[in-house]
Each structure stands twice: as structure tokens, then as C-alpha cells.
């Protein structure tokens, strides 16, 4: 093998989502060269640039204030939030709003003031939304942000590049290694600073409102490089997303449908099971209550064919449903159903809880720096405990923007007069060899098998009402997969160019690391708090007001804790 071509830059941003794009822009505007790496086609793939919902929280006008925004966030997070991060990032929210508006995102305004709606957990109405209320902001991001990148000549965008591992030299991150999908060849990037912006790991579960590409590539890579990780047990679920029909698989629309129409839920026996759990409220308990009940029904063998329950409107008069369908006829969800000739008045959708967002990632400081030299982490992979035990709706977008600004500026300042750190040639060779392994092996285990096992494992053991026995079974399965399956993991497709299966294999290996972090963290936290529920430990305990920290020590996951501090909001 000849000497690998090395691409050099000042700042490497891994991931072209909202946070990554913002970081690239900020670093560039502070005078350095940037490479922005994206897994798929730039501006098309990724989660937030498509699914970003309907609210961007910012404390814009009195009587609202940053202090109130912080307090709401920390209360929503069950006091587990890293308050310094919350303060640093949310303080930038108002200026981010002005910025995205200037860049062409259509936000609802009344004259000069932004209109704000009140979402759960907010003391004052604080969510800024699309000019057409109810439309998703994702498309606005997709429209406005990539062009800001394209205008900046010193940001080199490398698309169709799967990031696989970070490159280290001693305690410092000196770049990254990845797979150029189009050439089917490894890429080695040497950088003075690296910003990880790879998004979440929703695709590690079977059912998600996000896309299956969100496999937590950065989470596994950061862990393997020695970054301290945290918060992996806190995962947010959309209570009732559509499982079936396929054309609306994973769609969140059911979440709002249930705001407007009172549906009835059935299990596979045709039983209106909500009556059993909630004799008073029945099917009209909260959506979260419905989600938990569905999960229990599925666990106990009464789930629908696709792993959820049936949502039925059949009890309502046809003309009532027709009226509602007519009023909502522009919704993509209903239009898709119509194209399928699916009659909502007659047939039941299958629905169930889907992973929506994750709160675990690297431990970071207020500059988004990790414990590894030259490595920052932002957006969903930059945790630091910023969301606490439960994210407040509408906080993710301001966090992404703020972390982009903070990390981009920090990286640019650090590297301006810095020399390029050296690569460790032996490490580069080793990682490139590892990258090629599934292609070269003649094993018997397919990437699809590994992915399906990981997804089923997490979907079974790490959703609601977690139990030690399930988590331990999950961990045991992961250990078996490492010992038995991964050494035999190989692709059947051997051609190098645009080899989806090769990507699947590399993602699958990484997913095993991510799953293990989730299961072990969930097992360790012996309490229920926010998004983490333990059937065997149903109460919250003040002694658990601490962050779980995961580090790789001698090749194994090692756990410790860090107490939460309360500089701004004291727990009740």
C-alpha cells in the first residue's frame, strides 16, 4: 500500500447538520480554512436540516429573560443539567434568531417582533416558529444554511464521506480517517482542530422519527479515541409515531392528530387496553401514558404486527372525520395516505413510541471542548449534560446554533498561529486496515444482521420501564456480538465504489459501541429521572444528582460520576 494521501486543514468539522454548518461558518469568518465533512449529499442528509420541528426557543423580550429560560430548562431537565453550559449557550439564542432570520429563514413576525408560542415547560411563550404555524423549520434550514457555506470559498465541503475514526497523537486529536464513498477509498484528514458534529444515534433503535442513517458515528469514534462520554441513558421518544403503513413509517403526524381527534387504541386482541391502565381517562390520558401502555402491551405479546398498537377513528361519525380531513388536506401525511387509498375512517394506523432525539454524547466545557486536546463536540453529540434528564422542546435548535458559534470561534482562535500537529503513521495504517477489514474478510456475518440485532436489543431493553434483568441481558448480547459476530463481519458486495454494504458494516461496528454505552449507563443509574425510567427503581434520589461519565480504560468501558452543580438554579 502506497503512502496515503493526506488532506490538511486548519479546522475539520465532522458533520454538515445545523451545528456543524454553523461552526464551519464561524471558524471561516474568523479567518481559517475549514473542511466540512458530510456523510451523504450536503444539505440533503442528516436530521435537523429536514426534521427540525416547529419551535426555536429564545428569551427575546421582557418579561421573559435569559434567567427564566435557564430556570425553565433546568426544571424541565429535573435539575440534572450542566447549568454553565445552559447559560453559555442559551445566552446566544436571541442573536441566533436574528441571524437565521437574516439568512432567509421564514420566521413568524408581528412587525419587528418575532411571534412566540408557548410550548410545554415554558414560563413565558418563547418558541419562535415558521411563518406558517405548524410547518417544520427543517426545510428553512435546508434552504438557508447550505448556501451560507457555499458562499464561503475557504470552506471545503467533502460529501459522501463516511467518518470512521479520530486520529490521535498522544492525548491530542490530530484529524480523522474516513471512507470516500464515491472513490471507495480511505481519506486521511490532518487538522489543527477538530469539531465533532455528527448528530444523534436514533438509528441505533428499530423505530425512529429520524432517519436510519443517524447511527451515532461520532459517539462511538469519540469513545474509542478516549473522550469522556455522558448522558447516554437519556433518550427522548415521540410517544406515538406511525409504524404502518410504510409510506408514513416513522412519521410524527400522529402526535398532532391526537391533539385534534380522540382516537381509540387497540391491541392485537382487539382490546381497548387503555381502559385497563387508565379506567378514568382511558385513551385520552397523556400521549406519554399511551406510549408506555403500548410498550407494555408489546412486551407482553399483544402488540400489532409492526410492533405497536392500532389507532382507530372508527367510533367517530364519518362526516366528522371528513370535515377534519378536509381542513387538513394539505398535510403531507394525509396526502400520502390518500395516494395509498388508505381510509382513516375504516382502517387503523399502527403506532408506537419512536426514538426522536438523544441527550448522550461527549463531556464538554463551555467552549465545547472535550477532554481530548484539539477536539470539540457540538449539537447532539456535544452533551456535557446540557439537557439534563429531559430536554425542553425547542431548545435543541438554539443549542446547535450557539455551540456552532462558540466552538467555531474557539477553534479558529486556537489554531491561527498554531503549527499542524503530526500524524501517528502507525495509527493511520492501523485504522485504514480496520476500515478495509469487512471488505476483505470472508466471514459469514452480514452487516444487516448486526444492525438488526443491535436495534432489536435497544428497542426491547432500553425504552421505557427499564429493568436490570433486561439491561443485563442486553449487555450480555452485546458482549456475545463482539466476541462472535464482529470478528466474522463481512460484506457480500466487494466492489469498492459507492458500496452501501461497506458503509453498513462500518456503521454496524460503531453501533455496538453506542449500544453498550446506553445499556451500561441505564443499568448504572438506579433511579428514575426524566427520560430514564427504571421499573425496579421508580423514584428519583437526590444522591443521583450526578452525571455518569464513561471513559475507555485499557480497552474497556469504565464508569465514574461527576456531581451536578447548581450555580444558577437550586433544586427544589
Amino acid at each position, binding site marked *: 500500500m502506497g503512502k496515503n494521501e493526506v488532506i490538511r486543514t486548519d479546522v475539520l468539522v465532522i458533520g454538515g447538520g445545523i451545528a456543524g454548518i454553523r461552526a464551519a461558518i464561524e471558524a471561516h469568518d474568523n479567518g481559517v480554512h475549514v473542511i466540512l465533512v458530510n456523510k451523504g*449529499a450536503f444539505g*440533503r442528509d442528516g436530521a435537523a436540516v429536514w426534521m427540525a420541528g416547529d419551535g426555536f426557543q429564545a428569551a427575546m423580550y421582557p418579561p421573559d429573560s435569559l434567567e427564566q429560560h435557564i430556570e425553565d430548562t433546568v426544571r424541565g431537565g429535573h435539575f440534572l443539567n450542566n447549568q454553565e453550559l445552559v447559560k453559555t449557550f442559551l445566552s446566544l439564542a436571541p442573536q441566533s434568531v436574528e441571524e437565521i432570520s437574516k439568512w432567509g429563514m421564514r420566521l413568524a413576525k408581528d412587525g419587528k417582533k418575532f411571534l412566540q408560542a408557548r410550548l410545554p415547560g415554558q414560563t413565558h411563550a418563547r418558541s419562535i416558529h415558521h411563518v406558517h404555524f405548524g410547518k417544520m423549520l427543517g*426545510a428553512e434550514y*435546508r434552504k438557508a444554511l447550505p448556501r451560507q457555506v457555499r458562499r464561503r470559498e475557504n470552506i471545503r465541503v467533502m460529501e459522501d464521506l463516511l467518518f470512521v475514526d479520530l486520529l490521535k497523537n498522544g492525548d491530542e486529536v490530530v484529524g480523522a480517517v474516513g471512507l470516500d464513498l464515491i472513490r471507495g477509498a480511505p481519506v486521511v484528514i490532518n487538522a489543527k482542530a477538530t469539531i465533532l458534529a455528527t448528530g444523534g444515534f436514533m438509528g441505533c433503535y428499530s423505530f425512529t422519527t429520524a432517519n436510519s442513517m443517524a447511527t451515532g458515528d461520532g459517539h462511538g469514534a469519540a469513545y474509542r479515541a478516549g473522550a469522556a462520554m455522558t448522558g447516554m441513558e437519556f433518550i427522548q421518544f415521540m410517544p406515538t409515531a406511525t409504524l404502518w403503513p410504510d409510506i408514513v413509517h416513522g412519521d410524527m403526524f400522529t402526535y398532532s392528530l391526537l391533539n385534534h381527534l380522540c382516537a381509540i387504541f387497540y391491541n392485537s386482541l382487539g382490546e381497548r387496553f387503555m381502559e385497563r391502565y387508565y379506567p378514568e381517562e382511558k385513551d385520552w390520558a397523556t400521549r406519554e401514558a399511551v406510549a408506555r401502555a403500548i410498550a407494555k402491551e408489546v412486551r407482553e405479546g399483544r402488540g400489532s404486527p409492526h410492533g405497536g398498537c392500532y389507532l382507530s377513528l372508527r367510533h367517530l361519525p364519518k362526516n366528522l372525520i371528513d370535515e377534519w380531513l378536509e381542513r387538513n388536506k394539505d398535510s403531507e401525511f394525509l396526502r400520502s395516505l390518500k395516494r395509498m387509498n388508505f381510509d382513516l375512517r375504516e382502517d387503523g394506523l399502527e403506532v408506537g413510541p419512536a426514538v426522536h432525539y438523544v441527550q448522550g454524547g461527549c463531556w464538554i466545557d463551555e467552549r465545547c471542548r472535550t477532554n481530548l486536546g484539539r477536539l470539540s463536540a457540538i449539537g447532539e453529540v456535544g452533551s456535557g449534560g446540557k439537557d439534563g434528564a429531559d430536554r425542553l422542546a425547542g431548545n435543541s435548535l438554539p443549542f446547535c446554533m450557539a455551540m456552532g458559534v462558540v466552538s467555531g470561534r474557539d477553534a479558529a482562535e486556537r489554531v491561527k498561529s498554531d503549527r499542524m500537529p503530526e500524524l501517528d503513521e502507525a495509527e493511520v495504517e492501523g485504522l485504514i486496515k480496520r476500515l478495509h477489514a469487512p471488505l476483505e474478510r470472508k466471514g459469514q456475518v452480514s452487516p444487516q444482521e448486526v444492525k438488526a440485532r443491535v436495534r432489536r436489543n435497544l428497542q426491547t431493553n432500553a425504552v421505557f420501564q427499564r429493568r436490570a434483568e433486561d439491561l443485563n441481558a442486553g449487555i450480555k448480547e452485546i458482549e456475545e456480538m463482539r466476541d462472535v459476530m464482529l470478528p466474522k463481519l463481512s460484506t457480500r458486495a466487494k466492489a469498492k465504489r459507492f458500496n452501501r454494504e461497506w458503509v453498513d458494516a462500518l456503521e454496524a461496528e460503531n453501533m455496538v459501541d453506542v449500544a453498550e454505552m446506553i445499556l451500561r449507563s441505564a443499568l448504572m443509574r438506579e433511579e428514575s429521572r426524566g427520560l430514564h425510567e427504571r421499573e425496579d427503581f421508580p423514584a428519583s434520589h437526590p444522591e443521583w444528582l450526578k452525571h455518569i461519565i464513561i471513559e475507555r480504560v485499557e480497552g474497556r468501558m469504565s464508569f465514574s460520576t461527576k456531581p451536578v452543580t447548581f450555580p444558577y438554579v437550586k433544586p427544589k
Partner: protein
Amino acid sequence: MSQNEDLARVKIFRFDPEMDKEERYETFEVPYEGRTVLNVLEAIYSGFDQGLAFRCGCEGKHDSRCGACAIQVNGLPALACKRISEKEMVIEPHGKFEVIKDLVVDFNKIREGIPKKEPSVQISIDPDKCIKCGDCVAICPVGVYETKKGEIQASGAEFCCGDTCNQCVTYCQTGAITLQKLY
């Protein structure tokens, strides 16, 4: 060999410019009812040929469409994630862009010398409603719209993915755009 009633016959364009001398088509038989074309491609990939190259991004969830899976089905452009499967399908790469491999195209490289085709979608921009904001130009994943002398034109209508995409209609601020399928 008689065709199984439950299966679709799916003819797929295959070409790797670095390996193949010329393009070819391969036929697969897979279940199709109630499924999207993306579902069918995934079934072919996992069940038959792991070398099949195709893109997917957002997988068509929710209201927004990323456009990564733009292809051509039976001669008509569509987003695979929202195109409903039929019993007989010819699946080809989206006609506007250069082919990287099989169904994967380079969205940054427009093919040269594409023969002009009649559009399958009629795109109307209501001049009384259009405020020339350019959002349609920015949001269309295949670049149907362009600004010419201050006016917005749907100059690339033959590449429009129509109803499967619908982003211009969804995100036009004034509702000035209507799409109508012609056939």
C-alpha cells in the same frame, strides 16, 4: 416461469462507469403492495444484491423532503421514498444529473446534452401571488426553478418529482405554485 401474483417485476438500471463498458438493466421480483419504491430498493439490496447503489436521506418522514432519493420510475422523475410501487417498474437514475453508480447521481454535476423532454408535471406560478422571494429556487432538490431577469421560471419542469416531493408548494409563502400531474 410464470410471475408470482404478489411480486412486482422491477427492472433496474446498473452502471459503474469505472467497471462497466456499458449500462445494463437487471430485473428482480419482490413484494410491492403497499410499499414505496424506496422500500422495494431496500428489499432488493438486502435480499438479492448488496452491490446495488442508491441514495436515501430522510426516508420521507414528516412534511419536509430532503430530495436525496430522487430517481426516475417508468420514465417519470420521483422521490423514491414517497413513490408508491407498481407491479411493473423500470427504475433509473434521475435524468438531470451525472451518474456515479447505478441509481446514485452527483447533484453537483448536470448532464450535458440531455435531450429535451416533455414535462410530466404542469407547474403554474400565479403572477399575482408570486413575490419573487426565491424560496422555490432554494428548496427544490433538483433545481427546477431559476430566476431569469427578476422573474421566477420553472425552466426544468421535466425534472420535477411532482407530488412525491411537493416542497415548492408546501413552502411557497403565498401559495403561488400549483403542480398538476399530466400523465
